[in-house]
């Protein structure tokens, strides 16, 4: 019973954040998605009230795990744009295959460089700390 009430609180939180986000975007005429503002609102609530994490998790874990099902109506709409895709197939293939591979390598290489410099810094400061002891 407690699980159900926790899930209910989680549901109220998520839907309240979602509609607040839509409301804020409409009222302020923001050029960003309302759901994204809702996400930031929910994130803020979780930081202010960390105890609500379990309530939110109780409600969102299942939909997050099976999110793929929700994309089906949108993916099927692709058949409407099939002619556009077919006419630009080479460009799309290059844009997805080549640039994804390059971006993956470049991002990892750059992150590795930055993380290595942090590890060097941490090992250097712990060495200095030991010397001071």
């Amino acid at each position: 019973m407690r699980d159900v009430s926790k899930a209910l609180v989680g549901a109220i939180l998520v839907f309240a954040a979602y509609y607040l986000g839509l409301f804020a975007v409409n009222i302020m005429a923001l050029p960003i998605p309302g759901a994204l503002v809702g996400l930031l609102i929910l994130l803020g609530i979780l930081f202010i009230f960390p105890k609500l994490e379990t309530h939110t998790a109780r409600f969102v874990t299942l939909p997050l795990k099976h999110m793929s099902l929700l994309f089906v109506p949108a993916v099927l709409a692709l058949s409407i744009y099939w002619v556009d895709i077919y006419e630009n197939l080479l460009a799309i293939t290059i844009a997805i295959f080549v640039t994804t591979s390059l971006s993956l390598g470049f991002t990892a290489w750059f992150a590795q460089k930055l993380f290595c410099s942090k590890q060097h810094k941490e090992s250097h400061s712990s060495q200095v700390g030991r010397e001071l002891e």
Partner: protein
Amino acid sequence: MINAITQAFSVNGLIWLCVSVVGYLIALWINRKCNGHPIAHPIVFTAIFVFLSLYLSNTSVVDYQQAAALLHWLLGPVTVALALPIYRQWQILKRYGWRLIVSIVLGGIVAPITAWFALFALDAPAALKMTMLAKSITTPLAMEATAHIGGIPAMAAVFVITTGIVGAIVATGVFSLFKIEDRQAQGIALGTVAHAIGTAKSIHMGEDVAAMATLGLCVNGIFTALALPLVFSLFV
């Protein structure tokens, strides 16, 4: 919302929701049988199953979209629910600080810009170029963002999923080619460039890689979905 619920409780709505769920369950079974290989992503087989059902029953995609409007509407609240994984990764984000943010933002800029230039060089239509800008973020955010910048949300969903599958398949080869031995860096790149499908791949590589991939996925999703409409509204 009211329209989506009304449709869901109509006979047509119930039938097509059931077909979608059955298709998804079959797709999950196939995915398990293939050991979670990226090509066997559940969306691929669910879409094929529903498409075949539509073809056999002589139903149009537009009719299906109306009947299964509840599924599409739920994308909004599920996008909000992404706040939970971000909240849970906050400690790691604090530990790596600006280094992590800079890596993710750089990956979040390089991936869409290079894809945009590839389409630009090959003279693709503007709507396709705009849609491609959201290819590296998680599907619900990509669909929301493309709707705001003159792209095509349906196409965004397909580009995002294809990007994820490609990223997950080439990751091992690319990391060895670029001599990437740092597991955290591998995780960040997978989550940032190949979003949720890359994150699923990172789970097989280890918990530490998966934690970083989740961060890449979440931070890049927010960054791109915020930046794209803002930049678009400023310059276009």
